[in-house]
């Protein structure tokens, strides 16, 4: 394995991280929006969101990606591998994020909401000042967990030709007939990325537990 090969795997790491970040950044607010639709019990939409979340949570990323990549051009929407990949990641992660946000909203103390209403806060202000800061705190461990799940699902993007860490490693292994060294480089790249998120999640949980004990 030459230096160029290692550089190629690092190139893959940039793709993995960039696509994951895009998926996370778009998926977070969409998940929150979907959760709000269910929380507010908007007549038809809430049912549709519930169905969407249930189906998406059960769908493997590979299958979803193949569906988008092959079926969208069929109905006249041209997609590149990268845009299909981003769309699949967003659909997948927003469904999981919706569940995390929703359980935080469901456990939100009603009396605070009513107190905010009684001092005359409007709905937007109520949400921004009272609800959002608190549900963010409650949802954070679950959301970080979902981020690490998302990164671990990104090798699926290779089925439509996106060259991420795993794909780059497989390709080099096939060229050099020595598959193990590039795989080890791939592990050395994934482990720190995911471990940072797993540690972050543990740290947040421990801090929140300590805060609860102190209170």
């Amino acid at each position, binding site marked *: 394995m030459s230096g160029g090969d290692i550089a190629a795997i690092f190139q893959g790491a940039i793709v993995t991280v960039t696509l994951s970040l895009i998926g996370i950044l778009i998926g977070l607010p969409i998940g929150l929006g979907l959760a709000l639709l269910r929380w507010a019990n908007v007549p038809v939409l809430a049912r549709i969101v519930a169905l969407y979340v249930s189906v998406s949570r059960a769908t493997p990323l590979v299958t979803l990606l193949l*569906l988008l990549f092959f079926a969208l051009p069929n109905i006249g929407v041209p997609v590149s591998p990268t845009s299909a990949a981003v769309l699949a990641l967003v659909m997948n992660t927003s469904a999981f994020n919706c569940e995390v946000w929703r359980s935080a909203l469901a456990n939100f103390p009603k009396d605070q909401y009513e107190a905010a209403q009684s001092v005359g806060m409007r709905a937007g202000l109520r949400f921004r000042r009272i609800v959002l800061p608190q549900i963010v705190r409650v949802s954070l461990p679950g959301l970080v967990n979902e981020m690490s799940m998302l990164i671990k699902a990104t090798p699926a993007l290779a089925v439509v030709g996106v060259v991420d860490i795993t794909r780059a490693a497989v390709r080099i292994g096939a060229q050099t007939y020595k598959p*193990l060294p590039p795989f080890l480089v791939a592990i050395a790249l994934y482990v720190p990325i995911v471990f940072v998120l797993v540690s972050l999640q543990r740290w947040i949980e421990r801090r929140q537990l300590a805060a609860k004990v102190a209170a």
Partner: protein
Amino acid sequence: MIHDFGIVWSERALLLSGFANTAILSALSAVVALLLGCILTPALMSKHQAVSGAARVFVDGMRCVPFLLLAYIVYYGLPSLGIRFDNWTSGLAALIIYNAAYMAEILRGAWVVQPREPIEAGVAFGFSEIKLFRRIILPPLLLSAGPVLGNQMIQIVKDSAFLTIIAIPELTHAASSIQSRHYVPFAAFITAVFLYWGLCLVIEAGVSSVGRVAEARR
């Protein structure tokens, strides 16, 4: 569009065998991974630093690596060390090893919040360590961790779709081959999506009935 689903219907034998393979792969690896997890959990909780440290490295390692990479290592990487499996064995082994770590971590999480009293009562009654774990600690663990274990089983079903890449004829693989044979991408993959959904609904129903048993025993 209706015509496309007609084509998928005419290939139902292929799709159903893929579905059966997905179900078998998932069920088999869920059961074995759970059993291995039950062995791994006491190791994680062990008082011996060496044992708990080794178990921790394994579990955290698996939690930081994507499943597909592990499957590739077992299928393409191990042969260069002289260990060669066919794609079925590799896929199954990868699913089991990977998920055993998650099962162990889930059970450990449930163990930490278990009440201490029954365990101490068991110790006072002179249960041996193995018997204590099997009779006193494990049953409530499995019941209280039920929903999270169910989520992990759904995760196993979804992980099994990765194995299409090492050419195991599971559900996604079947849908892919129907799509490439007849060019009916939407009908083929949406059918696969709904079959996955059905499988997950069955798992969720199973978990909630376990939950009812747990509730009744309390």
